């Protein structure tokens, strides 16, 4: 798309897994000094494209050309040596090592053949400062960092390799708003320094803010490449999903204040992370949790599900006192609770286990009759929920790890819906899943609410909160800063309360 010679060129590249083509005869070009957005639903072939470029897998057919030379990367190291560096969505950090170790993991500064710890620390400090992460100490262990800080360290690590082509795969999905701004600035600086950037994101406004051009993938094929502004957002979405979207979000019903309160919390506090939180959720209501990342939203959901120890305050379910003693107790409350966790890979799924076992895991007791386990009943119940959620699977006995991200998330949802919950807590359930699946999740939540389920929905995506929720509680510094509903529920008010500023932009 630009006049400069391309950094990366792919010609007729295909990749087959078994009989299925993950990538089909794709031509693709990335140029220096250009921010190229890569769009598509999960399973469209974006990940495969990136993996081939970064040397994680090799193409079944076709040519990959880097700076005019045909290459055949056997591993990520060779790709990095050629200047192609990828920030993967699945974090590639080493949890037991320090931030400084991680940033210089491959080519640490040496003195006399050995690693120079002091120089390495200095380098880490500089790198962290350059991306606005001065709050991270170089000797901190990665496992002690919150997810958003880890993602920044991951970006710093990629920058340390001085890439010619930087690939960002959903690299901002866990970042706070302030970090995202930093990342934007870094990306723009790299662009003016002549670095090529491939930017994969599901967030349309990020792409509008950053990209020079975009390529849409669908079903393993490249659909179209176009310059910024040539296509409207709805046209792009149309290309991605191949079908017309009638509504972005399901209609909200007229509020029914008469419905009984399903979940009521009073004065919940937990260390410095939760401060005096009181909330009521009625049956049939979708209540959003907003605010910047890390303001206590995750802790609040975990506290309500009984995972945290030493929470003060009281919780009532359907007017009856409820003890926060653990997930099993939460599932046995008068209205059973369910928590869709943040990290589906570690807290939501048993990746090597098959789909059926994952789905029925939380509700096995439903199929137990005395000493006999009713496998037939389990099978039909699992089949029903798979149909209901439209989970795309080839075989119930396949491992969950073989599914795409969106379908994995649906499996987590299916698992908890099988328990017939009366109260559903969701921790950013649409992070990193494709547009089509998101729509289905929104519709599902609304359907559940219509049947009387109470929903508490934490999301980092403001548009989602506005579109989906009856009201939104914005959290700041461990407390509920504001409740927004009706006409007061819009992007501006959410951001203002999240940043704790008033209408004039003054810090309150």
């Amino acid at each position, binding site marked *: 798309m630009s006049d400069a010679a391309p950094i990366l060129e792919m010609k007729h590249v295909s990749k087959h897994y078994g009989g299925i083509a993950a990538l089909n005869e794709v031509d693709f070009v990335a140029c220096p000094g250009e921010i190229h957005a890569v769009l598509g639903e999960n399973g469209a072939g974006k990940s495969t494209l990136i993996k081939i470029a970064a040397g*994680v897998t090799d193409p079944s057919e076709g040519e990959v050309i880097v700076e005019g030379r045909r290459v055949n990367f056997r*591993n*990520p*190291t060779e790709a*990095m040596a050629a200047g192609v560096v990828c920030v*993967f969505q*699945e*974090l*590639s*950090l*080493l*949890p*037991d*090592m*320090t931030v400084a*170790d991680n940033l210089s*993991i*491959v080519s*640490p500064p*040496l003195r006399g*053949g*050995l*690693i120079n*710890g002091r120089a390495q620390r200095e380098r880490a400090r500089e790198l962290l400062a350059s991306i606005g992460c001065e709050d991270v*100490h170089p*000797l*901190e*262990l990665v*496992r002690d960092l919150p997810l958003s800080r880890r993602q920044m360290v991951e970006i710093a*690590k990629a920058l340390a390799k001085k890439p010619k082509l930087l690939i960002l795969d959903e690299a901002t999905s866990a970042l706070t708003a302030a970090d995202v701004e930093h990342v934007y600035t870094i990306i723009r600086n790299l662009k003016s320094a002549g670095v090529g950037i491939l930017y994969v994101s599901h967030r349309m406004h990020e792409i509008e803010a950053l990209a020079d051009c975009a390529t849409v993938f669908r079903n393993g094929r490249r659909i179209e490449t176009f310059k910024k502004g040539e296509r409207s957002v709805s046209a792009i979405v149309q290309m991605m999903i191949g079908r017309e979207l009638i509504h972005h979000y399901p209609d909200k019903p007229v509020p029914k204040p008469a419905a009984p309160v399903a979940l009521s919390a009073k004065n919940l506090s*937990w*260390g410095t992370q939760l401060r005096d939180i009181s909330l009521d959720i009625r049956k049939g209501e979708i209540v959003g949790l907003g605010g910047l990342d890390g303001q206590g939203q995750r802790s609040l959901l*975990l506290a309500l599900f009984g*995972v*945290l*120890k*030493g929470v003060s305050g009281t919780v009532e379910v359907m007017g009856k006192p409820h003890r926060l003693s*653990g997930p099993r107790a939460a599932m046995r409350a008068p209205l059973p609770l369910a928590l869709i966790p943040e990290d589906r890979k570690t*807290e939501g799924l048993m990746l090597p286990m098959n789909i059926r076992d994952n789905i029925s895991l939380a509700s096995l007791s439903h199929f137990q009759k005395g000493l006999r386990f009713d496998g037939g009943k389990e099978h039909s119940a699992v089949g029903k929920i798979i149909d209901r959620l439209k989970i795309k699977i080839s075989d119930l006995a396949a491992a969950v790890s073989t599914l795409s991200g969106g379908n994995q998330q649906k499996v987590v949802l299916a698992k908890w819906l099988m328990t017939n919950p009366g109260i559903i807590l969701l921790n950013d359930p649409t992070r990193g899943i494709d547009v089509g699946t998101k729509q289905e999740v929104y519709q599902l939540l609304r359907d559940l609410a219509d049947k009387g389920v109470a929903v508490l929905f934490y999301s980092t995506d403001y548009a989602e909160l506005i579109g989906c929720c009856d009201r939104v509680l914005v959290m700041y510094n461990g407390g509920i800063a504001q409740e927004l509903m009706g006409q007061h529920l819009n992007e501006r008010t959410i951001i203002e309360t999240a940043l704790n500023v008033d209408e004039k932009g003054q810090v309150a």
Partner: protein
Amino acid sequence: MNDLRHRIHHNGGLLAAIGLFIVMFIIYISNHPVGLTVAVATTASNKAVLLALVAMAQTLPVLTRGLDLSVGMVFILANCLASVIVIGTIGEGLLGITVVLGAGALAGFINGAIIVWGRLQPIITTLATGAMYYGIALYIRPGPGGDVQSDIADLATGQLFGVVPTTLVVLLVIVLIVWLPYRNSVPGRAALAVGSNEQAAYMSGVPVQRAKLLAYTLAGLLAAAGGLMLTFNTYSGEASAPIAGTYTLNSIAAVVIGGTSLFGGWGSAIGSIFGAFVLRTIEDLLFVFDLDPLWQPLFQGVVLLAAVSLGALRVLRIRNRLELFT
């Protein structure tokens, strides 16, 4: 100051092992009929260094999230081999020592090669190769006996300047020329990375295979160094299966007491040395309190359990139940 706080946090397990050893050793010495003399220290050191070396050997595969069940057998193989070839003049003896160390490294390399290129699990690979190495030891020395170059042996098990046990110096030198450079080298770093998260390490361009190969090779080398020291202590070789097995299992115990995680990615060989010292001191404590040696396994078990429990104390501080499982 802030740096120091982080460093203490990183080395909690090591510091606990050192503390435990110091406490136990003070109890031992203060109840010893003679007290701390050069002879008492030398005897304690000569015995403790054997397990310390084997425990150091075990640490390296454990850090990569592996395990080496053959360290005790390599230890015994080196002992038997040394009792045959570390003889004659001092020059011939030194040559023999080189061969023994080379054989140990080769045994370790074979373990690593099977694990890396054969993609077999470390635990089963080393169980099998360990049996093979023991078989070779038995072939070399069917019955106990043999000899060793006595000048070298006397020097190695005596004192430097009449006060410092030579075996402690040998151990220190091995830490200085093997462990510390390894820990601060790119492959040593890579080994920790592999143990911490092998996929992430691969994705980051870490030389995963080289790291594992080197870890197992060095493990063989260190275990053989332990076998040499055994030979210098006993002036003979013996292909004893119980000793091989005991050293293997105690090496794992020492690694754990020393604060190294069996899940890999976390720990240090220096911790394992102190873990080994702790285990040895248990035996000495039984001696000074005049208890039946039959109690030793029981006490070892209690100390091991206590050490592991110490590491689990963090559970009491945990306020998010999810962290119990990380």
